[in-house]
């Protein structure tokens, strides 16, 4: 009968082999980690939107509109937007919340431009229509962080800014 050798010698050898294999696996994983953890925005956009909706005061009821309506209203291309949350008033006021994540840096620039154009356009319309809304539009909170954009036009821009900042800091 064939002898497999002394078990006391074989056991450490197997242990060494196992350790070696585990080390190799660990190295492989280490190479992938940086790709998964890109320095992208880790902000929960839905949470920011929810807080803007519930903690900031508005005169009118704000409601979300369908994505296709939103893209038309806001003047952005759908392909530039990875994620979006929107709330609009029915027209009595200029109040609105728009939180978007762009598909990349260049897309974000276009979204910011669209937001600025939207504010300017609204100011132009409301100037002859409801001038008090121009004041609200002048105080619009428009911020970006990473690939995300936050716009809040409300009755309390300080509160809106505070909410966004708290979410960004957290």
């Amino acid at each position: 009968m064939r002898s497999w050798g002394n078990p006391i010698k074989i056991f450490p050898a197997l242990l060494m082999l196992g350790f070696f294999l585990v080390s190799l696996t660990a190295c492989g994983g280490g190479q992938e980690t940086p790709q998964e953890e890109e320095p992208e925005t880790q902000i929960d956009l839905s949470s920011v939107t929810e807080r803007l909706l519930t903690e900031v005061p508005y005169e009118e009821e704000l409601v979300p509109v369908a994505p296709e309506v939103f893209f038309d209203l806001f003047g952005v291309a759908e392909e530039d937007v990875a994620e979006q949350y929107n709330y609009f008033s029915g027209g009595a006021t200029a109040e609105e919340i728009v939180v978007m994540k762009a598909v990349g840096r260049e897309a974000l620039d276009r979204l910011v431009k669209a937001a600025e154009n939207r504010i300017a356009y609204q100011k132009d319309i409301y100037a002859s229509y409801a001038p008090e809304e121009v004041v609200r539009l002048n105080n619009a909170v428009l911020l970006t962080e990473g690939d995300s954009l936050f716009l809040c036009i409300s009755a309390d821009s300080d509160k809106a800014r505070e909410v966004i900042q708290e979410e960004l800091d957290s």
Partner: protein
Amino acid sequence: MISRQQRLMKRKRRTRFTFFCFVMIALAAFSGFYAWSKEMVPGEKPLSAAAYGMEPEDGGGTEETPESQEITILPGDYGAGQADADPVKAGLKDGAAAGESGGDTGETGAPEGAGREGADGTPEAGGEDWKREFYPVPASPKADDSYFSDAVFIGDSRVQGLMIYSGLTEGTFYAEKSMSVNDIMTKKIVAQGSGSKISVTEALRKNQFRKVYIKLGLNELGSSLEGIVDKYSEIVDEIKELEPEAIIYVQAVIPVTKSKSQSSKVHNNPRIQELNELLKKMSWEKGLYYLDTYTGLADADGCLPKEASSDGVHLNKTYCRKWLEYLKNHTVKTGETDL
């Protein structure tokens, strides 16, 4: 004695004859089946007015006059079906349908001498009598969102509010704040993606609709009412040219709240009603479908209820939904497409 060659010839002729018979029978069977299948296709012919319990004066079907060819009404618009569609039951008012006078708009909305029924009590199709039945548009069985899939809403901030607040899942909106009869067709308000915009005229030239809902008149109330209606009339002519297949609804200007009405020399309900009377007349003359959205959304005083608006003008979510309900309960349908 028949020769072999003659026998062969005879067999050949018989074979040809048999083949010919077979082909003829096959052709006859195929043509018979084809004719039968054509008869079975639904909606092949336009439905006649008689199919909906209406008796055209001339006894003909919808092909007899241009108007009757274009318009068909839903079953139940008159008679027993109307009770189900009673807008009062649905929490809405409708002067024409419910037999109420509705604020200062008066009567049933029909012009002088316009009879609602024929001599035997049956609504008459064809000619002026046919038109009167839709003036203003009476209550109808409630349509669903799909009715608006081929509709375009053209108007001002209130129409934009309808788009945002009503929850309507179908339809196209060419609406923007501050729009008036003076700039609705020319100002670039229709988004084309990536921020570019075109005018309503250009958009209508590019897209075809079967229903056009217009609601304008509030922002320009400071101007002369006759001037507004003249411009409105020009807009309608342009839309008719651009959308020849569409039926056009003219919506009455919705009232403002009592406090707004009392505080404004321009945006007040008496002036709105005065304009609505002129719009009603224009609609009648041009064969448009006038929707009495004033009465449909007014309270007992003929004003927009206080709770309907924060600024006295723009409707909130609840009232935009009531507005949509009114539109759904007051429809006319083109026979070939919707029935």
